C-alpha cells in the first residue's frame, strides 16, 4: 500500500455567508464520500478543510494578502489515502464532491522517508 495526498482545488469565490441549511447541503456529499473511503479502509489521515483567508509569504519580506493573489484557484483542503497504485488512487478520487462544484483533485504519491 502506498500513500497519496489528495489536494482539492476550486476557483476562488467571494461567496456570501452560507445559512446553516446551505452548509448542511454542501457538507452531506463530502461526509458521504469520506465515509465511503473510510468504509473501504482507505483513509490514512482525514486531513483538513482550509479557510479562504490567509497570506502568502515570499522572499525579501514580501507578504501578500490571501493565497490567491496570482492564481485563479485556491486549495480548499486535503486528505491522505492509501492505495496500491496511482491508478487506484485516481479511481478513488473520481467520486470527490469538489468535481461537481467545478473544481479538481490533484493526486500525488507521498514519498516515504525511508525510500
Amino acid at each position: 500500500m502506498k500513500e497519496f495526498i489528495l489536494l482539492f482545488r476550486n476557483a476562488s469565490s467571494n461567496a456570501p455567508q452560507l445559512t446553516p441549511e446551505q452548509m448542511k447541503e454542501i457538507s452531506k456529499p463530502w461526509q458521504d464520500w469520506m465515509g465511503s473511503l473510510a468504509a473501504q479502509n482507505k483513509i490514512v489521515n482525514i486531513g483538513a478543510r482550509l479557510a479562504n483567508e490567509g497570506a502568502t509569504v515570499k522572499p525579501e519580506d514580501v507578504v501578500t494578502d490571501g493565497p490567491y493573489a496570482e492564481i485563479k484557484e485556491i486549495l480548499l483542503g486535503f486528505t491522505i489515502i492509501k492505495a496500491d497504485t496511482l491508478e487506484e488512487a485516481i479511481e478513488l478520487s473520481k467520486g470527490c464532491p469538489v468535481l461537481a462544484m467545478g473544481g479538481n483533485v490533484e493526486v500525488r504519491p507521498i514519498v516515504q522517508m525511508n525510500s
Partner: protein
Amino acid sequence: MQTGKQLIPHLFRTEYSKITAVLARLFGFEHIEIAEDIASDTFLLAAETWGIKGIPENPVAWLYTVAKNRAKDHLKHNAIFSDKVVIHIQKTNTELHELEIDLSPQNIVDSQLQMMFAICNPAINTEAQIGLSLRILCGFGIEEIADAFLSNKETINKRLFRAKEKLRKEKVKIEFPKPSEINYRVQAVLTTLYLLFNEGYYSLSQNSTLRKDLCFEAMRLNFLLVENKSTNIPSANALLSLMCFHASRFEARTNTNGEIVLYEDQDTSLWDNELITQGEFYLNKAAEGNEISKYHFEAAIAYWHTKKNNNPDKWENILQLYNKLLLIEYSPIAALNRTYALARANGKPIAIKEAEKLKLDNNHLYYSLLGYLYTDVDNEKALAHLKTALSLAKSKTDKEMIMKSIDKIR
C-alpha cells in the same frame, strides 16, 4: 423462605469478588491466589455451617467475619507470607498497627475499581482480561466462563493461571493510576468492558441467562467507573449509554425458541423503556467536556435504533454517524452497517454500488448484506450471494438466519 442452596450461589456471585478484591488489594497482586482461596474457603464453610445450623440473620456480615478471621489465621500460620505481606501493608498504610481488613462499602468499591485497572492490562491478551474479569471481578465459576467462551474448564483454568503469572511478572499493582494516566488507563478498561458486553450480546452460547449476566456485569463494572469522580470521563459514560441502549432490546431480540429476531422484525413493545431512558441520561453526560470517542458515535447510533419510526431521517442520521465512526476507527462490521444504513436512507441501488467496493471477500456477513441489497432488485444475484454466505458461515445460528433469507426469496 430461601434455603442455603439457593442463596449461596447468589451470594457467591456478589460477595466472592468483593472479598477477593479487598484481600488481594491488602496482600498485593502477587498473592491474589491466597485471596481467592480465602474467599472460596469462606463459601465452603458457609455451605457446611448453614446446611446444619440454618442461614444466619445477616448472611453477608457472616461471610465477611469469616473471611476476616480466615485472613488473619492465614497470616498467623504462614510466617513467610506474613512477613512479606506485612511489609507490603506497612508500605501502603503507615498508621496500621494491627491488621485491619476493611470490608466497608467504600473500600469494596475502591478495591474493585483498582482491581479493574490491574486486570485490564495490555500485558495480557483481551481474552485473558475478560476471563480474569469474569472470575475475579464478577465471581463467575470456571464452568460458566468455559460455557461463555464455548471452551472447557481445563482450558479456562490454564488461561487464567497463565494470565495471573504474566501480571505477577509485570509486577502489576492493585492501585489507582496517577491522575495524569487516568484517561489512558480507563481506555484499556473500557475496551475490556466493551468486549465483555459483546461477548454476552453476540455470544454463540445457547445459555441465554448466562449471556445476559455477562452484559449486566459489564454494565455494573462500567457503572462503578462513572460513579467514581476520577474515572467519570465522557467515554465511560458513552460506553455505558451504548450498553443501556443495546440491553433495552434483550427481550425482543430472541424468540421463545432462543433464535435471534432481526432488528426489523422485533416486537418493539418488548423494548425496555427504562433502559432507553438511562441510555439517554448517560449519553447526555457523555456530551459534557470535549472528549469524543468511538463509543460516542456507537452510542448515538444505538440511540437512533431505539426510535420506533422508520423515516429516512432516522437512517440518514445513522448513516452520518457511521461515516464519522469509520473515520475514527475502521472495522469491517462498521463498514457493513454503514452500507445497510445507506440503503435505508438513500435506497438499495446506491448501496449496492458502495457494497461492491468493500471487497470483504471472506466475510459471510458481507455476502448476507449483498443478498439483502439484491433482494427484490435482482433475486437471482441475491440468491447467489446468500449461498456464498451460507458456505462461509460457521455457526448454526448464522446458517439458520441465512437459510431464512433464502426461503423468503424462493
